[in-house]
Structures are given as C-alpha cells and as structure tokens.
C-alpha cells in the first residue's frame, strides 16, 4: 500500500470486524516535533494478551477465509523504517487501541494520501458504526463526528447524492483548514 490513509482504512476495518460500535480515529501531523501519528481506538471485542503479542505476526489472523493477515505487520514495518513504532493495546471485552508513529520528514515515509477518501469510505461503508475522526495539524484541530449528522438525517441514507457531497466537502475542507502551512502534504479531496 502506498498511502498511510490506505493503511488507516485497513486497520479501521479490523475494528468493524471486532464488532465495534464506536471507533475513534486521530491523525496528527506536527512539524515542530517532526512526528506523524495515527491512532485507532475501538470498543470492539478486544483480544487477550497472548493474541495481542502475536498480532503483528503475518501468520496470525482471526479471519477464516484465508490464513494470513498482513495489515498490521505491513504498517509496523513501515513505521519502524521511519524512526517510528506501532503499538497495539487491547483488553478482552473492552476494546483495542492501535497507535502508530512516523518521523514526519523521513524520506521513506509514505504520503498520507487521500484521507478524505478513507474517512468517507468508512462512514458510508459501515453506517452502523459511530465514527469520530480528528485531524490535528500542529495546534489546529478538525473534529468530524458522524453521530450529529446521522441524527439530523433521521434515517435518510448517507448515500444520497446531496448527502455525499455534503460529507465529502465537510471532511475535505475541515482537514485542509488545519494542515500545517510549511508542510506540503498531498491530501486530495
């Protein structure tokens, strides 16, 4: 995968598969500390300590359709090659938190890519989940909480053309407004 936002989509998918009702995503770019951080926190089934310890091994997966799970191992490897790390904290019955950090300016760091596309995919694709997305660029913060929008729509599908337009514009302008000015990322809408 060539974009961090694609990894984000992939990891968030794990939360949905763990039957999470609430998933909180944070993406933070800080040019002063030169760090890029992403966290994905859910209230899904969680894992026991033994599974957590093995979860970044490519030959561990809870899925039954195939025997290898490459999502977390890929991302861990990418982070570690950019002065970063990936940690997984989890508790059975409570939920899971994945945290990954990169050196923002590292030459090998993947671009964030189409963050709006990722968030839109998740919000539209899993309407039963309550999604909270925070983008932080230095001291500027954009929070997108889909609960407010769903309440206002009152049963109207998120896939209606006007709703899609509204969501896409809200997320993309929200992120753009908070991006650090001296850092040229490549977020497209």
């Amino acid at each position: 995968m060539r974009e961090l936002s694609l990894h984000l989509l992939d990891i968030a998918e794990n939360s949905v598969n763990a039957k999470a009702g609430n998933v909180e995503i944070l993406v933070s770019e800080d040019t002063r500390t030169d760090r890029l951080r992403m966290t994905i926190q859910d209230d899904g089934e969680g894992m026991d300590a033994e599974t957590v310890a093995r979860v970044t091994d490519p030959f561990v997966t809870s899925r039954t359709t195939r025997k290898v799970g490459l999502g977390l191992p890929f991302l861990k490897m990418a982070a570690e090659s950019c002065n970063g790390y990936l940690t997984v904290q989890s508790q059975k019955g409570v939920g899971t938190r994945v945290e990954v950090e990169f050196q923002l300016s590292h030459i090998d760091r993947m671009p964030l890519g189409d963050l709006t596309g990722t968030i839109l995919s998740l919000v539209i694709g899993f309407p039963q989940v309550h999604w909270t997305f925070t983008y932080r660029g230095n001291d500027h913060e954009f929070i997108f909480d889909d609960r407010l929008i769903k309440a206002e729509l009152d049963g109207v599908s998120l896939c209606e053309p006007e709703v899609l337009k509204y969501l896409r514009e809200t997320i993309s302008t929200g992120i753009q407004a908070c991006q650090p000015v001296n850092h040229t990322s490549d977020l497209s809408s």
Partner: protein
Amino acid sequence: MPTIKNLDDLKRIREEALEKRKLKTASGNVQVVVGMGTCGIAAGARETMKAILDTIEKENLSGITVTQTGCIGLCEREPIVMVTVGEEPKVTYGKVTPEVARRILKDHVGAGKIVEDHKIAM
C-alpha cells in the same frame, strides 16, 4: 463542536431526499457492496469505492446503498463489487477498476444489463 458547518444545510438535504423518495416509483432498491479487506484495499478498492460515490454524486443517482465488507476469500480477483438490484439475484464482479465501476452503475444499475466480462460465477 466545530464539526458541522451548517445544520440547516442538512435539514434541507433531508427534506429534499424525503420528497424524492416519495416520488420514486417501485424501481426497487439497489445494494452495492465493495470488498475492503487488506487484499481489496491493496488492489485499489478505495478508488473503486470513490468512483462509485463520485458517480452517484455527479449523476445524482438516488436510492443506491453502498456498503463495505471484508475479505471474502477471492483475494486474487479483488477489487470485488457485489450488486443487488431489487429482488434480482446478487451479481458478483471481479477486477473492478474505477472504470469498470462506472460501467456497472451505468449498464447494470441504470439499464439492467449485467457487465458480463467482469462477472464472477459463484
């Protein structure tokens, strides 16, 4: 909460959508499911999803539900898209690039013609 620019916008959107729903005849609902496991994402499923959503927005297509699913065990044929129109049986498509996705919306969803060259026999 700085999240919603203008709640009135959403209210208006909802009312218009409800109005449209009333006008719609019994053409039946359309379900589109995009496979988004690690395999699907690596094969470009997000761009496929994006092409579907963009087309819905640009062509103003109402009544289509787009959702996601994980890996269904056909990783080598990702991106996979499943389409169900009304009461008709589900059709599974493989190697759905954004271009193929637009064809599926136009020919299958729009005109009832299955895109045979990308159909997977299940």
